């Protein structure tokens, strides 16, 4: 894993992990693992099998008599449905913009917090607050207290500034209706930037001090040091942030449900919200299940890529 104090890591390696388990008493070794493994398989894998089965049925609970096997026709529907294709695109746009923007902002903040300045500890504490506020609460506050066209903080502040310069009234922008996707992205970037900042700050602080010192002695400029030493060192931390951020942001449900309800129209409907609508508004269980299977397959594709990133960090630690 990503820690650069090699001697400590080596020590941990020797201390914690003996070379190989022996063949004898294999089951005694496995025993403590089994409850967690069985629980995970039962609660996370079995429902997926059920999803696979349901996805082959024509099944709308509003028409209870009409439940029958339809083979792959739900999948045919899923792949041709305009709304779902739209949801895939929205999910990609939302996830990519949130992750990229929060990594960039998080990096900037981490670089600032990696220096000593007045009130640094307090600033750090205040900066992680957005990540700790309950996501639903944060989404409601953004929607009603910040974006609201009549009395939201955003228009209110604009109005106050306009009046300061003698203009009678500021603009009345309905942020959520006029800019639905950016409104979502901003609220989510706000929430995820502290997460990225914490990971990247830990990365910066794990930099070996002597290398930086050597660079300074050799007369490297701050920019050169950053580009040639800090950034390559940070790469694995950035990758980790992107991977973990993507896992969570792809699943965004709270913010969409609260801020835009997927609208206007379906402009901000992402996959989790679309599946939710299919399930609990249209009651098309078969279609929802098929969409769920497609999402899982999509996630597996992304996950194999993501797992490779995590695996490379992990092997590095284990093999040290």
């Amino acid at each position, binding site marked *: *894993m990503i*820690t650069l*104090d090699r*001697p400590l890591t*080596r020590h941990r390696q020797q201390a*914690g*992990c*003996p070379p190989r388990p022996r063949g004898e008493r*294999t089951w005694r*070794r496995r025993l*403590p*693992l089994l*409850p967690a493994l069985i629980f*995970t398989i039962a609660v996370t894998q079995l*429902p*997926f099998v059920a999803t696979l089965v349901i996805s082959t049925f024509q099944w709308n609970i509003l028409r209870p008599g009409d439940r029958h096997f339809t083979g792959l026709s739900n999948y045919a529907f899923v792949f041709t449905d305009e709304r779902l294709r739209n949801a895939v695109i929205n999910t990609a746009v939302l996830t990519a913009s949130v992750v990229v923007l929060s990594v960039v902002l998080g990096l900037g*903040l981490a670089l*600032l917090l990696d*220096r*000593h*300045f007045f009130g*640094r500890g307090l*600033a750090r504490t*205040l900066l992680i607050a957005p*990540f*700790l*506020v*309950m*996501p*639903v*609460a*944060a989404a*409601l*506050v953004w929607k*009603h*207290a*910040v974006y609201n066209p009549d*009395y939201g903080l955003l228009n*209110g502040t604009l109005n106050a500034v306009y009046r300061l310069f003698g203009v009678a009234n500021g603009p009345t922008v309905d942020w959520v209706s006029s800019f639905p996707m950016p409104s979502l992205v901003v609220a989510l970037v*706000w929430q995820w930037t*502290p997460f990225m900042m*914490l*990971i990247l700050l830990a990365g910066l*602080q*794990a930099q*070996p*001090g002597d290398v930086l010192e050597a660079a300074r002695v050799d007369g490297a400029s701050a920019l050169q040091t950053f580009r040639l030493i800090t950034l390559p060192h940070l790469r694995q931390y950035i990758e*980790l942030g992107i991977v*973990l951020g993507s896992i969570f942001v792809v699943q965004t449900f709270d913010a969409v449900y609260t801020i835009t309800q997927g609208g206007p129209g379906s402009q901000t409907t992402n*996959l*989790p919200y679309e599946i939710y609508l299919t399930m*609990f508004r249209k009651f098309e*269980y078969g279609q929802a299940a098929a969409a*769920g299977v497609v*999402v*899982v397959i999509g*996630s597996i594709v*992304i996950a194999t890529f993501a797992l490779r990133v995590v*695996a490379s960090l992990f092997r590095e630690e*284990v093999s040290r």
Partner: protein
Amino acid sequence: MTGTTAAARISSPTVLRRLRRRRHEDPGQLPRLSPLWTFVAWLVTLAFFAPVAWMVLTSFHQESDAATNPPSPFAPLTFDQYKLLLGRDITPFLLNSAMASVFSTLLVLALALPAAYALSIKPVKKWTDVMFFFLSTKFLPLIAALLPIYMIVKSIGMLDNIWTLIVLYTAMNLPIAVWMMRSFLAEVPREILEAAEVDGAGLPTVLLRVVAPVAMPGIAATSLICFIFSWNEFMFAVNLTATQASTAPVFLVGFITNEGLFLARLCAAATLVSLPVLIAGFAAQDKLVRGLSLGAVK
């Protein structure tokens, strides 16, 4: 390969010098920021904190002062909104949230501690594969499991039951906990365990009496992360509960649609439900990073 040689290596002069050179949290060793950049840092910090500050401030205002344009930050302060909330119906929701988070966290620890033991201290064969199996379950979108879970839960009459949420939150957090706990248990000094084994202690005793006390910081960090994720979970809570088992986030969205908009009271409710996690997170800032990165970042 005993702990003694490792300890000897650690205390060798070169290693000590390296360790000393490593830049730590001690701000005294960090280079100073220039006044201009200090200003920028604080400007960005305050911009990020503004929505939280506004939420808390509005929660102490009267409704008439909360929804004004331009905003009235200096309106008189009052506890009325909190009195209204606590005097009415938020308490059962908070209790449900507390129950779901605490019980699922305890369950996660009970499952993850032995599992982590079997993945680090006495590893099973192919333990890395098991690790990645756990992680891969985290990549499956929860929404894809919602439909079958909803149907199963409905058929066994467990809809609107807090134990349903406890089981689901346990499954949701278990992979994270296994990864974190493994990284912490890998640091438990070998000698301690060997001594316990010589004494002939069984696994439960070793885990509770020997491993748990040494790995306490790790257990605390794991509990914190599991608590945060369960406390904040919304999707399962809103779709699988109705009246009896609803948690705090469900209360929040419900009270908007049922009663129209009361901005000050909404902000009070938002502040109140966020408070446990804010306090826990602020108190354990240093543990947060390691937890969020599944134990990867120290």
